[in-house]
């Protein structure tokens, strides 16, 4: 069993990163152009890394499956990005951001990584501002802040409701500058389909050109994956349609460990699904809960219109259960409460899968125009999608899969257990433990790309030992053959059902059994159903078209094939974790009043799963989580 060395520098928490940087080997500036770095992904993590590498002088090959790097899924983030600037003079500090993040993650993240994240958070705001990101401003010209869940200070920076878009465009612009300068070669509409490992080191990738269908190999001195999260395993999620696990998964099959897959975040305020044809779910900002009250009818199957239900027959269940935090209870808790209400038959709207988010009290108190000023764009979006006017009838909301805390295992340098393979952003597992706080994923992606990886990759390259090989190496040829064979296989099955049919079925199994609340029974059920579905997929899927051309169904087939394997691992991970923490709630492990019951004695570790080959069980490697600086405690929001 390979050892899981997290390589956290010794010494006091606040000095670890400084010390690590001081100990690093450096690449001679004149030699940088002799190294080629492959970066897969152009989201906040990938674009910031690729442009920074270019600025440093490395040669960079950058890939994404969208038609331009600017469309990576980071673009959809609405709310904001955290930083410990303490511009508001309200008592914020690097330590407090660190602490909030660790606590928000339910004490399942690495202290050293999270501290570094908090430390570099301030540089991100400076960097983005210099790039021209139009952050919201006060009249005096200084940057504005808002507050977000899980924190008592105002530390979130934002650009209207489009913070992710603006940060990504900032990173994209820097990236395009490097493309113009010839330091970065950009490959849009190109999907990584395999990782090539030579002599134990990650040395390249095999890709498919999504327009021409051409399968091609690329050689590099290091490979960086910044390929985002895997929430689309559930079919319906707030992720973009194209978001997938393929890059990470193929790396996993080549030996990279997959850590904590069971930590999935379910966001409480999304627009409920409207029918079978639903293709994705849309997030409504958490900020709505500041002025909206959440309720369901007290009587199951109450078919009356909401305004016909008198006050006394409504259950404002969050206010009832959590009198202190009320409607602002954290994401995981609010989501579960909504599910409980709907499971009890109290849900509203089609299929009973929804709860009311009611603004009528606020509108009475503050007037429709004040509410419109705060949430106008969200109300418009809601109306566009549902056709209902939230000024007049309460919104209907329901939880949806939103973010995945798990991902490829990385050490302090963001390198996986495979030397030369680095993993950034949502694709890695490092910083959010079992639950991510709002506005901290953007922070992590950019911290990784701008301020961590440029240092740590230099150290890896400078240490040398990277052999001279070419893409004619047998490992490349084998990987290409594998990719080609898989495509041929998909096209030859010509079964009865479309790729989406299987994806929806898988999503359903996952949502029902490995969703907001999991039990041993449900997980075992999932572990029976997923492999069966996978077998059916490989026998009965129907993929039209041919290989050598633009074929969107073929793209999807490869992604769903990987989800069908990941689903099994996710359920396996959830089954072994006999505790409840953050986004992982095992119904067997709860307190008397239904709160998550953590088990620090037995489960304070990161579970890093090792692939042993198709249909063989995974090996579980454990990285113990050591808390030297903070005291483990139970989260309470009562």
């Amino acid at each position, binding site marked *: 069993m390979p050892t899981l060395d997290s390589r956290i520098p010794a010494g006091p928490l606040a000095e670890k990163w400084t010390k690590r940087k001081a100990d690093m080997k450096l690449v001679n500036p004149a030699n940088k152009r002799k190294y080629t770095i492959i970066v897969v992904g152009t989201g906040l993590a990938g674009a910031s890394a690729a442009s920074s590498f270019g600025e440093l002088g490395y040669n960079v090959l950058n890939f994404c499956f969208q038609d331009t790097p*600017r*469309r990576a899924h980071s673009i959809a983030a609405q709310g904001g990005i955290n930083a410990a600037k303490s*511009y508001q003079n309200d008592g914020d500090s690097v330590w407090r951001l660190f602490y909030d993040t660790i606590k928000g993650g339910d004490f399942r993240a690495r202290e050293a990584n999270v501290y570094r994240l908090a430390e570099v958070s301030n540089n991100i705001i400076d960097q983005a501002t210099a790039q021209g990101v139009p952050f919201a*401003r006060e009249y005096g010209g200084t*940057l504005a802040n808002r507050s977000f869940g899980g924190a008592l200070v105002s530390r979130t920076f934002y650009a209207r409701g*489009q913070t992710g878009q603006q940060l990504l465009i900032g990173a994209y612009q*820097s990236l395009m*500058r490097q493309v113009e300068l010839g330091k970065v070669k950009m490959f849009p509409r190109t999907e990584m389909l395999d990782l090539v490992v030579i002599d134990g080191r990650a040395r390249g990738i095999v890709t498919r050109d999504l327009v021409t269908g051409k399968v091609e190999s690329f050689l590099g001195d290091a490979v960086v994956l910044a390929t985002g999260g895997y929430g689309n395993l559930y079919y319906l999620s707030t992720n973009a349609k194209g978001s997938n696990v393929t890059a990470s998964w193929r790396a996993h099959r080549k030996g990279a460990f997959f850590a904590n897959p069971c930590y999935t975040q379910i966001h409480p305020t999304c627009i409920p699904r409207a029918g079978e044809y639903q293709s994705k779910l849309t997030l409504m900002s958490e900020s709505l809960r500041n002025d909206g009250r959440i309720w369901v009818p007290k009587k199951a199957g109450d078919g009356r219109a909401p305004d016909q239900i008198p006050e006394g027959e409504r259950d404002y269940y969050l206010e009832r259960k959590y009198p202190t935090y009320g409607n602002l209870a954290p994401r995981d808790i609010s989501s579960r409460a909504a599910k409980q209400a709907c499971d009890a038959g109290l849900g509203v709207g089609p299929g009973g899968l929804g709860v009311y988010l009611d603004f009528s009290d606020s509108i009475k108190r503050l007037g429709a125009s004040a509410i419109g000023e705060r949430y106008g764009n969200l109300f418009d979006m809601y109306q566009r999608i549902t056709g209902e006017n939230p000024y007049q009838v309460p919104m209907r909301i329901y939880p949806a899969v939103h973010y995945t805390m798990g991902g490829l295992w990385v050490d302090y340098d963001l390198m996986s257990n495979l030397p030369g393979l680095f993993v950034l952003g949502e694709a890695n597992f490092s910083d959010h433990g079992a639950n991510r706080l709002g506005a901290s994923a953007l922070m992590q992606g950019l911290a990784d790309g701008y301020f961590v990886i440029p240092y740590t990759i230099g150290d890896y390259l400078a240490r040398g030992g990277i052999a001279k090989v070419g893409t004619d190496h047998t490992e490349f040829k084998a990987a290409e053959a594998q990719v080609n064979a898989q495509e041929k296989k998909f096209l030859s099955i010509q079964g009865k059902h479309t790729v989406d049919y299987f994806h929806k079925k898988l999503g359903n199994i996952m949502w029902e059994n490995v969703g907001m609340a999991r039990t041993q029974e449900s997980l075992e059920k999932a572990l029976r159903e997923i492999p069966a579905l996978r077998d059916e997929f490989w026998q009965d899927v129907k993929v039209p078209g041919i290989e050598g*051309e633009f074929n969107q169904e073929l793209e999807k087939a490869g992604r769903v094939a990987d989800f069908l394997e990941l689903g099994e691992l996710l359920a396996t991970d959830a089954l072994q974790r006999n505790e409840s923490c953050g986004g992982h709630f095992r119904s067997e492990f709860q307190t008397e009043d239904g709160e998550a019951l953590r088990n620090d004695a037995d489960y304070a570790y990161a579970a890093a799963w090792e692939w042993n080959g198709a249909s063989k069980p995974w090996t579980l490697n454990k990285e113990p989580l050591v808390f030297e600086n903070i005291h483990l405690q139970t989260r309470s929001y009562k």
Partner: protein
Amino acid sequence: MRLTLEIWRQKGADDAGRFVRYEHDEVSEHMSFLEMLDVLNQKLIEKGEEPVSFDSDCREGICGMCGFVVNGYPHGPQPLTTVCQLHMRFFHDGDVLRLEPFRAKAFPIIRDLAIDRSALDRIIMAGGYNSINAGGPRDANSILVGKKEADLSMDAAACIGCGACVAACPNASASLFTGGKISHLGLLPQGEPERKTRALSMVERHNTEGFGGCTVIGACAEACPKGLKLDFIARMNKDYLAGTVTYREGAAGGGSG
């Protein structure tokens, strides 16, 4: 409800292309436009026919990946709405909808409704950035930006790069896109040092990419799902003219820095 769809089918850039008619009787008013096409595609695949290729990703109106022309309207007839956010309740039973790709020389057709918009990337490459490297910038609050300028800059920065402006323009001009970027950066003090050279290089790249010129028709702003205004094109012109007047050899040219 029931719809008749006439969809442009074209195998590749070299294929001539033609409209193909589909009767679609499984349309729910709650579907988004793209979900309506998803359902059609599922049926086509099951029948052994080729599904219709179209691009989309976020389906929330923010990534800019979707986009085609519905009955002569880029992104469909709803103002300020991308086609992924357009819902079927705005259509009526029995409607005939004609779907065409965005058409421009700079946007070659890949397949059916999917096109190649990388020309827009190349316009950004020419100078759509502040030439600064990661590391070492000043504290963000040491640069003060008036709220009005910040807000206006944000209005311009809201562009999602969808190309609907090009599609709508009788001249197939990408001026709204280009002007948006020039305005976004030029309105901020951080973008000031390169304001004029940026306009020079971006406008010239716009030209060599094969887009038409702006003749102030205004169809772009009508079609833009993010509400970018013609004012941003005026700002582009102003910066370009100022750049021409103050031009010094060796001062222009994208990416140098």
